[in-house]
């Protein structure tokens, strides 16, 4: 049986970081079901480490690191064997249709089309390159934070970022997204 006080403490520590963690899960996995799965796995693991978690000064960063390690240890290991859907596969832009916003329909359509192209371009990058560009340029992580998260030296991260941007520019120029 779970002690209700434990549940309360756990929630108090982790809930403030949920949005950040969910975004990270999305950036790492690129798909809703897998992001939710990774998020869930993190919480299960974190709850099992509650004694340690309550003494951590920056639980948000710690949780991000645990999530990244979970992704590397489990998700990436299984990803190579994961079956791909024939009819509803890991399509570029999956999930983006939900993002239609307040703009008029034409602007919305153009905006979504742009994101779909960006999404397709990102999927042409290696996983390492995609992650570094998404974490740095999209999520606003500093190079040092990415180093701490992934264990990759800043010099390597810079190099990956440079190459990832160059490749993205090339792809998006070719398809007319950037002119």
């Amino acid at each position, binding site marked *: 049986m*779970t002690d209700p006080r434990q549940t309360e403490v756990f929630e108090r520590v982790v*809930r403030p970081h949920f949005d950040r963690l969910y975004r990270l899960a999305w950036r790492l996995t690129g798909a*809703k*079901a897998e992001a*939710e799965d990774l998020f869930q796995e993190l919480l*299960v693991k974190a709850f099992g480490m509650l004694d340690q978690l309550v003494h951590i000064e920056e639980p948000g960063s710690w949780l991000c690191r645990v999530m990244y390690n979970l992704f590397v240890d489990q998700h990436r290991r299984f990803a190579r064997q994961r079956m791909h859907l*024939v009819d509803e596969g890991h399509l570029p832009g999956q999930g983006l249709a939900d993002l239609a916003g307040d703009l008029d329909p034409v602007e919305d359509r153009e905006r979504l089309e742009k994101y779909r192209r960006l999404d397709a371009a990102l999927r042409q990058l290696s996983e390492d390159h995609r992650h570094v560009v998404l974490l740095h*340029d*999209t999520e606003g992580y500093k190079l040092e934070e990415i180093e701490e998260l992934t264990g990759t030296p800043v010099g390597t991260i810079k190099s990956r970022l440079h190459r990832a941007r160059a490749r993205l520019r090339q792809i998006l120029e070719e398809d007319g997204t950037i002119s």
Partner: protein
Amino acid sequence: MNEERVMKEQDLLELLQDYPVPEAEAGFYDRALVRAVHKGSRRQRNRWILAGFGSAVAAGLAIWVVTAMLMTTPQLPEAEPSIPGVTIAMEQEHTVRLVFASAKALDSATLTVSLPDGIELAGFPGQREITWETSLQEGRNLLPLTLIALTPAGGEVLARLEHKDRNRTFRLRVDVS
């Protein structure tokens, strides 16, 4: 770097900065929290295993899973990275793990595995198509399939999952060495 290049770099950065993430579904965080508290202490590692694998297969499931865990990752061909594939040796059993995610638990789903000529599922000699009723857990489900190649032709293994009026087909390319 010339001015045009700078502008393109700027366009790219703006596009990336605005690249959105869909918000979590309403109630997802609360549900995740409840499940974490419920499961957290149990450390149930085998939660991915496909439940209700069917009476004909159930007796051999534990062995299949254990065997699968001991298998090394199959080498994937470079040519078609979008379709996973394995290379198996002739007349030797080779277990592949098919992992797929379900957004919610599904009861009474039907799973049909279709095999190309020359490839059999262990325990089902001579059968090109094997169908059984199954249940899926929410999250990742693991389906180990033990394949045997009887000819060097190879081909595609299809796994079709049907639930009510929806269906999805998964495919796996099998090469024989």
